[in-house]
């Protein structure tokens, strides 16, 4: 249950290995008195370090197994997590796949994987979570989208389109939740230094996961549906749709 100054009790991270997701959770534990964290990832054994780092902040942490692409299981999984643990104040959907644009253009299975993780699986999961939050009459779902969702470009339209899908879906869920006490927030970071972007040349205005976490933390106190994680990202979100295709085609990323 949230209180009037933004304390919360229980947080669920879907995509337990996400750097951004963990940065957000750790900030919420440090600043908002979160007592209980549930990390969900394909391979819970891989979460050992994440778990102990959050435990060192004073939270009780559990790791559980789930697969974003295992769509048939989503509803059952979400029901189980909510029933076993009690009310979830914030659920963060941070699992995602950057993929490789060039490979996706050649290999249909790689293309399919990006779309399934980032859009189909994420959308089904987000729907299941939103329904539970509505029944709960409170709580927030944070969906990690991307500035790439604003305008898919030649250089990364597979990832961009998959994020555009979940971004639009998330805004729809936000409207679906209005009046229920639950809330859905779509977060659009720009380039973030993380495992996901390891090895890529950073784009301008790159942020650290902690900076993204700070922006998300602040946005939780607002009633915004779409959140850009910095002023520069917000500006890009305004400019990108205005650019002609001839320029969009030439953007390196």
């Amino acid at each position, binding site marked *: 249950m949230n209180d009037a*100054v933004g304390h919360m009790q229980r947080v669920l991270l879907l995509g337990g290995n996400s750097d951004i997701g963990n940065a957000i959770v750790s900030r919420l534990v440090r600043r*908002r008195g979160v007592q209980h964290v549930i990390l969900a990832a394909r391979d819970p054994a891989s979460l050992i370090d994440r778990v102990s780092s959050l435990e060192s902040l004073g939270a009780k942490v559990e790791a559980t197994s789930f697969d974003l692409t295992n769509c048939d299981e989503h509803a059952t999984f979400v029901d189980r997590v909510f029933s076993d643990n009690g009310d979830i104040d914030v659920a963060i959907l941070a699992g995602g796949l950057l993929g490789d644009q060039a490979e996706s253009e050649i290999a249909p299975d790689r293309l399919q994987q990006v779309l399934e993780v980032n859009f189909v699986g994420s959308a089904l999961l987000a729907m299941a979570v939103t329904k539970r939050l509505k029944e709960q009459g409170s709580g927030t779902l944070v969906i990690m989208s991307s500035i790439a969702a604003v305008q898919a470009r030649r250089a990364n339209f597979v990832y961009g389109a998959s994020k555009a899908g979940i971004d639009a879906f998330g805004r729809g869920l936000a409207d679906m939740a209005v009046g229920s006490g639950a809330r859905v927030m779509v977060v659009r970071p720009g380039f973030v230094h993380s495992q996901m972007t390891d090895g890529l040349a950073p784009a301008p205005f790159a942020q650290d996961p902690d900076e993204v976490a700070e922006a998300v933390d602040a946005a939780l106190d607002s009633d915004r549906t779409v959140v850009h994680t910095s002023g520069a990202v917000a500006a890009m979100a305004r400019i990108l749709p205005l650019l002609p295709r001839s320029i969009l085609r030439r953007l390196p990323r």
Partner: protein
Amino acid sequence: MTLAPRQQLLHGWGRAVPTGASVVSTEDGSLDRAISNPPERGLLARGLGRSYGDAAQNAGGTVLDMTGRSSIHAVEAATGVIDADAGLSLDALMRRVVPLGWFPRVTPGTRHVTLGGALAANVHGKNHHLDGAWAAGVRSFVLVTPPPAPDVPASSTEVTRESDPDAFWATVGGMGLTGVVTRASLQLDPIPSAWLDVETQRATNLEDAIERMRQLDRDHRYTVAWIDCLARGRRLGRAVLTGADWAKPEQLPARFRNDPLAFDPTVVGSVPHKLTARVVTRPLVRAFNAAWYANATRQEGRQLQSISSFFHPLDAVDGWNRLYGRRGFLQYQFVVPLGAEDTLEAIIGETAHGATGSFLSVLKRFGPGDAGHLSFPMPGWTLTLDIPVGANGLRTMLARFDRMVADAGGRVYLAKDAALSPDLLSSMYPRLSEWRRIRDRLDPGRHMRSDLDRRLDLVGRSIR
């Protein structure tokens, strides 16, 4: 006719943390039905929604809107005993009984609370130092509790101090978590007129205010101090104090003497529903407080005031809570024991230097507490601070205040609370575990629930 439950977003008077619930109207037989078939996320009775925080919310569960049950079943004009439904407002009660020369033993700062809400919060008023809290005027009440098992009907019991003292004192101040109070019998006090003879004084700082308050409490039935929570330094805690007693008819000006018990308060203004910006800003708070303090020079000495202007001045502005804008506000009310004046001063000092100030701050000296397990009042000083949500550093400031209050042996008022540190609950309310045992006897299925309970784990679900 049965009205279908409706999904509704509910918030407290502070409007800060809305949650969704299924609201059941209780005019008809739907009350018994709802209590007999509690949903998974539980039940809670709600009156007029004047508790500031989340005490009258039940996210995802059922909320019983009690305001439809507001009949007065009996008024004994000779003895001042009334029997009424729990959904009756104090406003409606006073309109009925003041002209007969009776007044509730205790009135909080608004008439827009129900008898059930006043009982659940065991509210207090300006006469606490002499007359105690709401419980003092309660003769009995009817408590309906959810069935321990499905398909067993809900049970309805009339509770008095004698019939079941545990149930009586666990329910009075029990924040609605022992069951649903549907009806109550109250002992009213006689009044000679609907007017108060009010003495106003100014105090230049907190020490002066405390000293004057002690004296006023000896001289008057009703006392309160308004504190300027923006004044600093030597003027820290400067205050306007009022002490009052019921005026005798012969004290009234000729035009009121014919009908000294006339009572018909009106609303002078209303804050528009569309208002989303915060009107209460620090400059306004400063100007208001300075004006109030200055204005008191004109009122120093004695004057007559009506019931509404003395007890319920804010009721004249409909929806004043909307002045705090979309994000709302919270009221932090605590009590510290007599002797812990340092803590009082430290908190006022920190508020004066804080980012927000407090629009309205009221200081009162409590008399003895009562036998309610979760009753808020204890002999000591209680202060209220109205603070807009969203102020910088508010979270850490209130956590610090919680700690200071707990260390001083005081407590935070649950009916106002929206931000208490959960780990301090049991030290502030040392009889919590006793209350939990009685509560579990009354509602073994633990069907009574509220957001306040979820947030602080009042019921003790985590310690099976």
